[in-house]
């Protein structure tokens, strides 16, 4: 069954694991219940490649075992934050075995929101509130400190004014006209890296990023805040995040620009005074940017 390695090829990278392991953890403090439900992808890289080369499976930790391990760790360690749990999974695989060289864990947290009415919280009932998804990506190499990324995805927001776009470059293919007053609709994706994995209040940090994105997008509630471009709003948001959370080292934000067009109704005898718009899925603009803290000298 074995074959010798092919002299014409070399490995670039390998990894295997289990995707979409779903688990819910409940912590009961008397009648007050806390839940965390998540979906985890776990990937391992092993020291040898004999599984790929010769079909020798003796080093492989089956992906079924990986799944069982995720469940077991939920019981043994509990789940307080998805980042903490991802760190626990990495630590387990790197310490329980001596032939695992890298672990990558990506987790999505299911957005359960505790029911609340008039400031009173329900002790045990929740509703799915997918206004924003909390995800994390933790990677750790053997004998290195883990690298933790957290993120927000699919947070869709829309404002109907206080957005414009003018003064852009024109060439012979440009037909776009200046806009002083347009809609701004986007589905925000943000991913940031922490400079430490020790004692970070991950949930509080995530909420701060979410609130900061909304704050910079919407502006003050009575009048909003003008956005001269998606790029500017994106950058301002990033700077504010870095200012507010000292442990965030770098942040990437992607904001598609989902366009709404005024539809011409003159052919059906109506005069559309910018009241009826058509949402256009595609194509959409896509604006990206990543900034990081400049490394500072330490006193």
């Amino acid at each position, binding site marked *: 069954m074995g074959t010798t390695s092919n002299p014409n090829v070399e490995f670039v990278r390998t990894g295997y694991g289990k995707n979409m392991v779903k688990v819910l953890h409940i*912590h009961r*403090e008397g009648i007050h219940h*806390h839940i965390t439900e998540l979906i985890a992808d776990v990937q391992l890289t092993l020291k040898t490649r004999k599984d790929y080369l010769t079909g020798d499976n003796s080093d492989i930790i089956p992906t079924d075992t990986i799944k069982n391990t995720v469940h077991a760790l939920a019981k043994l*360690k509990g789940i*307080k*934050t998805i980042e*903490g749990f991802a760190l*626990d999974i990495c*630590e387990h695989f790197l310490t329980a075995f001596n032939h695992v060289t*890298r672990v990558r864990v990506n987790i999505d947290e299911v957005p359960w929101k505790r029911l609340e009415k008039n400031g009173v919280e329900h002790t045990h009932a929740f509703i799915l509130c997918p206004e924003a998804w909390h995800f994390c990506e933790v990677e750790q*190499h053997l*004998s*290195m*400190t883990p690298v933790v990324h957290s993120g927000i995805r699919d947070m869709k927001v829309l404002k109907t004014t206080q957005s414009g776009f003018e003064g852009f470059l024109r060439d012979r293919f440009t037909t776009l006209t200046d806009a002083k007053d347009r809609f701004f609709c986007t589905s925000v994706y943000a991913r940031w890296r922490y*400079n*430490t994995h*020790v*004692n*970070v*209040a*991950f*949930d*509080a*940090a995530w*909420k*701060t990023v979410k*609130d900061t994105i909304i704050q910079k997008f919407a502006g003050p509630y009575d009048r909003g805040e003008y956005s001269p471009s998606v790029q500017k709003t994106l950058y301002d948001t990033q700077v504010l995040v870095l200012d*507010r*959370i*000292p*442990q965030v*080292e770098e942040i990437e934000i992607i904001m598609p620009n989902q366009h709404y067009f005024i539809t011409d109704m003159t052919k059906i005898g109506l005069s559309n005074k910018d009241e009826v718009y058509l949402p256009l899925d595609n194509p959409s603009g896509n604006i990206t940017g990543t900034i990081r803290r400049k*490394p*500072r*000298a*330490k*006193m």
Partner: protein
Amino acid sequence: MQAEWEELARRNWLTDNDRPQIPSNVSPYEKGYYFHTDNPFKDWPNAFEEGLRKSREGELPNAVLLLEAAVLQDPQDSEVSEWAYKTTQRFFRCFPVVCVCRCLELHPNNLQALMALAVSLTNTGMRQEAAEALLSWIRHNPKYKYLLKSPLSVFISSPLLPEVKDLYLEAAQHNSDTIDPDLQTGLGVLYNLSSEFNKAVEAFNAALSVRPEDYLLWNRLGATLANGDRSEEAVEAYTRALELQPGFIRSRYNLGISCINMGAHREAAGHFLTALSLQRKSRSRQLSHQVMSGNIWTALRIALSMLDQPELFQAANIGDLDLLMRAFNLDM
């Protein structure tokens, strides 16, 4: 010991910007405080009393672990949670800072630790906490505590920084016949916090006039110069610090940062590698060193990314220090 103090300062706990009222039945668990996972004291009997005793004795790292253990052993324990709640309400930021401050209330002579804490908080951008620590330094300092008219009033929120700065300036003016290098250090840190780097440089220079062999001060001067965009002078200061203390990893790291700022990326990488190699030789398992190590690797990756040698960048990603040392012809 200093490293432990600084490690404690690195741990922190964000609060929401609008700081809602915390009901008394909310445990630190719910607040998202990240307890140590492998706490050797987790089943320790009388962890709470032991923790308070250790914090009185100034043995902070173990005190924190014991107090965490006490909270975890019995989250419903009214004495423990009342203490935790009251002290976090008062200091509202950071459980370990809470322990430090509590320890210092009971054992106020540890001014050195308090200053080290302030420096560390400044380095990690915890401006409010740094200002609080510096205020505590005055409050516990027999030479200057008379300056505080009403000690508790200044614990109320926001712009603490200008008031604390005024306090230090007042202290310096009242004692203008001698230079107190520790007071000047505090002033230097405050000017760093307010980004008045040239004034900070003056303060550290004043401190150095009294203690010219203090390698920590030389490093602080260097970092201040660097953060104030005076990179060449910063390099001189770091060089002096390293002459006095060749194994001083932080200065080596800072030297690398300055090299990056001056565009000397290869030289920067060399400094970071030297720092990592020194760390590895010391075989330190201290958490503070692990965290510093993470910083050095991050900075190394930045330097390497500018060198257009992807195999070196990849080696940095997987932590292959030996390969990198060989690539830079450095002794291992």
